[in-house]
């Protein structure tokens, strides 16, 4: 009796590059889940994509996808990219410039030996699914960033890959397109049943698209958790900076974001519907008594936790809206802060960034 193979990705990636940089990370992704590999430029994210896709071999470690070993230097196994069946949406999309959109999308099926007319018909149905049917005859050079992204997604998904890799899928887009396409991307990710890995340097993207975030810094995973875990308990300076930003999901209407019954006044009065509000910890002021002055959000709460990070102190506040504030050690002394002490929070409306969620 053979036990059913594990559905998903189970990998340890070790890749040493010539200049002393080594990538060494563990990665496990269940089917139907999205993991974000979030890190700064040069952290080794693209190397990880290449190793998983089979575009470069591991120096040590092992890649196993749905129970099939794809790379195992110790066992002398290396399955080349063409035989891995892993769909990749590349950074900058890398659409073939000499082929039109339909030919780009049908490329994978043609490679698998599907006949031309059948492959093009399948490509058209995928384009239709992504609402870009009218682009079939265009060349990639004539597409907008958003259109190119959808073509790249269709090209990767048409072969029903065993896993989906997205390398900075939104980085090439301008800010407004990015917010819109993030939502459609979320829908399409949801519809894909295999394990999905999202590579990004944008925390918002990771928070909105991934079930679990792996922070990668200098070739190593420094923290794994949900957006909430990382925000509340950042383990490194980078994580603190990233997570630094308080993220509040809610519904916007006429300059007010309502989140779990709590109302925040925000600077942007034009945005409506589901939003993600971002508040930088240094934008949050703490006071002993009720502050007065310009219109701002103020409420009374308590200090849940105090954490020292060198010359900075992070203060975790309690209900009704738990937030992380960052102050200097002097301010902690001046305010006489300790855990459980009562405190007033104030945030200027204009210090709250709101993006469509």
């Amino acid at each position, binding site marked *: 009796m053979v036990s059913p193979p594990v559905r998903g990705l189970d990998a340890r990636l070790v890749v040493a590059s010539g200049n002393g940089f080594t990538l060494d990370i563990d990665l496990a992704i269940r089917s139907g889940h999205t993991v974000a590999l979030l890190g700064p430029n040069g952290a080794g994210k693209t190397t990880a994509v290449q190793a998983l896709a089979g*575009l470069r071999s591991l120096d040590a470690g092992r890649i196993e996808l749905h129970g099939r070993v794809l790379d195992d230097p110790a066992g002398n196994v290396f399955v080349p990219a*063409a035989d891995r069946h892993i769909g990749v949406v*590349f950074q900058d999309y890398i659409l073939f410039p000499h082929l039109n959109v339909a030919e780009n999308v049908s*490329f*994978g099926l043609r*490679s*698998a030996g599907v006949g031309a007319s059948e492959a093009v018909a399948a490509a058209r149905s995928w384009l239709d699914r992504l609402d870009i049917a009218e682009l079939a005859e265009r060349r990639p050079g004539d597409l907008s960033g958003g259109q190119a992204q959808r073509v790249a997604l269709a090209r990767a998904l048409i*072969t029903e890959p065993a896993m989906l890799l997205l390398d900075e899928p939104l980085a090439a887009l301008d800010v407004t397109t990015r917010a819109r396409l993030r939502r459609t991307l979320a829908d399409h990710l949801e519809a894909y049943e295999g394990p999905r890995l999202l590579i990004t340097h944008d925390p918002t993207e990771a928070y909105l698209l991934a079930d679990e975030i792996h922070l990668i810094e200098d070739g190593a995973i420094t923290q794994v958790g949900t957006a909430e875990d990382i925000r509340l308990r950042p383990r490194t300076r980078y994580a603190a900076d990233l997570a630094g930003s308080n993220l509040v999901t809610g519904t916007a209407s006429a300059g007010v974001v309502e989140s779990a019954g709590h109302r925040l006044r925000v600077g942007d009065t034009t945005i409506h519907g589901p939003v993600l509000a971002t508040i930088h910890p240094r934008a949050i002021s703490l006071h002993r008594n009720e502050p007065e002055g310009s219109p701002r959000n103020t409420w009374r709460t308590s200090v849940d936790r105090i954490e020292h990070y060198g010359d900075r102190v992070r203060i975790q506040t309690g209900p009704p809206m738990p937030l992380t504030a960052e102050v200097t050690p002097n301010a902690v002394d001046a305010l006489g802060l300790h855990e459980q002490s009562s405190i007033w929070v104030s945030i200027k409306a204009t210090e709250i960034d709101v993006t469509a969620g």
Partner: protein
Amino acid sequence: MTGPVRRTTRPPALVLVLAALGLAVFVVPLLGLIARVPWSRLPELLAGDVVGDALRLSLLTSIAATVISALIGVPLAWVLARMEFRGKSLVRGLVLLPLVLPPVVGGAALLFALGRRGIVGGPLNDLTGIVLPFSTGGVVLAATFVAMPFLVITVEGALRNLDARFEGAAATLGASRWRVLFRVTLPMILPSLAAGLALTWARALGEFGATITFAGNLQSRTQTLPLAVFVALENDRDTAIALSLLMVVVSLGVLIGLRDRWWRSW
């Protein structure tokens, strides 16, 4: 809002004079040739036996040299562009050598290597009976020797500039190496490949020194257009001029075909 750029400084007169002289070096010979063309006798001259044989042989051998260059020069360019190995710069130097080597020396080298008593030619003759010197095959080989470097350097440059991620993307889509090569790599470098082939063909068509040294000058077997021009100059100037005009027209045709690539994109 700004009009055409106005030149605020004129170049010194001396520069203009020297530039005009430079241009004259190219233009005067052409004018001299065209001035002597016996236009009324041209059809009759071009219809002659010697001309017909030379034209046929030149087309055959230059196209054969181009096809051979494509078959072995493109893989060579690929190896130079994509592989790292010891002695690579030496290999590249050897590939480029025919560009600077006097063709006569190339022809002599071919003769020593592939002549009947040459280090390769001897065994080749013993085993297969093939004799390259003073044969049409020898013309093709001489033309390939001098012309193929144009294809190799053009294609190598294009392959180096090609973003390898396109080939990687094709591989992740399940494309075999051959499919990647024929559906992605070669189509993407097609403009350079075409330019390289055109240059190679033009160089093969004009080849003289290595050909006459290695293959001789036998009408209908090894006497190509340039050789026929050289012979005709001795005893039949009008035919020589007609042949020369023919080659000028062909060369201009190649240049016009490459104009977008070579003239304008600067």
